[in-house]
């Protein structure tokens, strides 16, 4: 009797760049089920998802707006993962950056933008660092698994934000629990007039270029990658693994914090509870689709931004719930993960 079995065989060179495209195709085939459920026409749905956003300048800009925080959360996750530090806390670190940003932003009333913007950016970075500090210290000093602690920190900050918004920071003028608006001079300027595309987009690009440089062109990047591929080996080669991981974890938190500042200073102008809407977790999708490569992260963020924009278009045009976008993104993550592995195997008949 012959049996099919998987045998390890590296994918030919031409396959690797094709994988993401193939994954997208498979994802859309799988999500047909969910579209069929609402009896929507799949071709129309996918048209609104993938093509319609490109048919108007407004939605094309919106795509970049959606991608802006994802550049940063994706970069934050990829940076940490490369050093073998599983920072799942970008969601909380983003909110910490947003908290500091919305606090500093109010205090900066009366200062010029030249002073306000650098303080906002540094403050948000430090907010993210602060929220990343406890899990990072617990990991390097006491070997406590960072996955669990960063996840719990994400839950804790929800309560902190709720306290601030219902208590001391509540804007007395507004009906909703939100903080007062930040100073005009602390708001990020827009890149295109009359749009929401803000300075944070440039920060995102700069951060991606910077982490590319750090990872692939510096001694620290070499230590990071060594710690990520084998802590034992790195230690043997004289790398201070704990220190490397600590610095990486804190920088990763800081980058996520920048995403939070961007959302405050460029989009909302005050703190609200739903500010993040899963941007930190989506950063993990972005980092994975980008294969933890900074430029890959950039492209993946744009693509996820397209799906985010597309799901709004689909929702408006066809009444399909906007959460279809989240289902598509998660499916894409699972399919891409599988494909990366499966293309390294061949089906062989044996026996």
């Amino acid at each position, binding site marked *: 009797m012959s049996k099919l079995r998987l045998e390890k065989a590296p994918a030919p060179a031409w396959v690797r760049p094709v994988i993401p495209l193939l994954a997208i195709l498979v994802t859309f085939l799988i999500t047909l089920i969910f579209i069929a459920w609402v009896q929507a026409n799949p071709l129309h749905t996918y048209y609104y998802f993938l093509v319609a956003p490109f048919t108007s300048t407004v939605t094309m800009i919106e795509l970049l707006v959606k991608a802006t925080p994802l550049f940063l959360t994706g970069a934050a996750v990829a940076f940490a993962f490369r050093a073998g530090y*599983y920072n799942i806390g970008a969601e909380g670190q983003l909110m910490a950056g947003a908290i500091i940003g919305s606090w500093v932003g109010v205090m900066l009333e009366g200062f010029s933008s030249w002073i306000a913007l650098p303080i906002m950016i540094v403050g948000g970075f430090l907010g993210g660092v602060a929220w990343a500090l406890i899990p990072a210290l617990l990991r390097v000093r006491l070997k406590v698994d960072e*996955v669990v602690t960063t996840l*719990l920190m994400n839950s*804790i900050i929800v*309560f902190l934000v709720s306290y601030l918004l219902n208590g001391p920071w509540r804007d007395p003028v507004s009906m909703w629990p939100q903080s007062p608006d930040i100073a005009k001079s602390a708001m990020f300027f827009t890149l295109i007039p009359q749009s929401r595309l803000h300075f944070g987009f440039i920060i995102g690009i700069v951060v991606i270029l910077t982490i590319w440089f750090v990872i692939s062109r510096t001694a620290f990047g070499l230590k990071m990658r060594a710690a990520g591929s084998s802590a034992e080996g790195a230690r043997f080669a004289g790398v201070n693994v704990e220190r490397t991981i600590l610095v990486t974890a804190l920088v990763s938190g800081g980058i996520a914090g920048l995403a939070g500042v961007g959302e405050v200073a460029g989009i909302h102008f005050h703190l609200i509870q739903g500010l993040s809407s899963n941007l930190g977790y989506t950063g993990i999708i972005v980092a994975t689709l980008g294969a933890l490569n900074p430029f890959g992260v950039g492209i993946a963020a744009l693509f996820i931004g397209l799906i985010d924009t597309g799901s709004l278009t689909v929702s408006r045009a066809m009444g399909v719930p906007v959460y279809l976008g989240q289902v598509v993104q998660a499916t894409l993550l*699972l399919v891409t993960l599988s494909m990366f592995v499966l293309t390294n195997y061949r089906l062989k008949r044996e026996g």
Partner: protein
Amino acid sequence: MIGLIAATLRVATPLIFGTLGELFSERAGILNLGIEGIMLLGAFVGFATTYSTGSLWLGVLAACIVGIMAGLLMAIMTVYFGVNQHVSGLGITLFCTGLAYYAFRVIFGTPANPPQIQPFMQTEFLADVNILGPILRQYPLTYYAMLLVPVVWWVLYRTNFGLNIRAVGENPEAADAAGINVYRVRTISLMIAGGFMGVGGAFLTLSTLGFFTFDIIAGRGWVCIALVIFANWNPIRVLWGAFIFGGVSALQLRLQLTGINLPYELFLALPYVVTIIALTIANRNAAYPAALLKPYKRE
């Protein structure tokens, strides 16, 4: 005091289901970060099933089945494909969460008031006895959670199947050499785990709340993962961990009512902070299953 104990048992119930599930999966060598999403999907599917059929137990069953299916998906990813467990687990959580939200909108639209069901009644058991009566006034699923603890212990330590699970979680190569089908044992463990998680989530909609909200799980799944480490992968100790978290949660409700002038969010965050502290203390002696996070490929 008596009310506090009763409340502790109530809060601990979904955690016991979730933690026992996670324990099954980790004992077989798979960290299942899908738990948060599976619990949410279980909460939704249980609610939606009861809403449309009127039967609470059918709701529990449906939540269990959808959890088993999610566990199977996790098994395909991590056991058969050997994909990174952290990322695939989070992927499952994001997928299940998105699916629950999407399905809620498809079925219920955007109602002004959340649709309601009549949840489980608390059973009166020895109601006339002074202290025991109020403590034992619990939802049926709470009793099942308590029963499940010794059952899981018995399965893990006193049956062949349990021995196989521990073997594939500690040393899959040796288990394979001894004729155990590593893939199959891990897959079944993940499916059982998913079933528990689904029921744990459904407890919230079908027992305590009677309706579904998007933030219903609120990190309870992550707490379960911490509790597994705290319990040092021992089902009996899961009970203590769940009681500590449940106790702190129940206590913070009381403290809020006494009118102590502290923000109530501080109390709400307290159980999560305590979980991190407990985890840190327990971590010194934690004996992780040796093959946790390591995919097994038969050569």
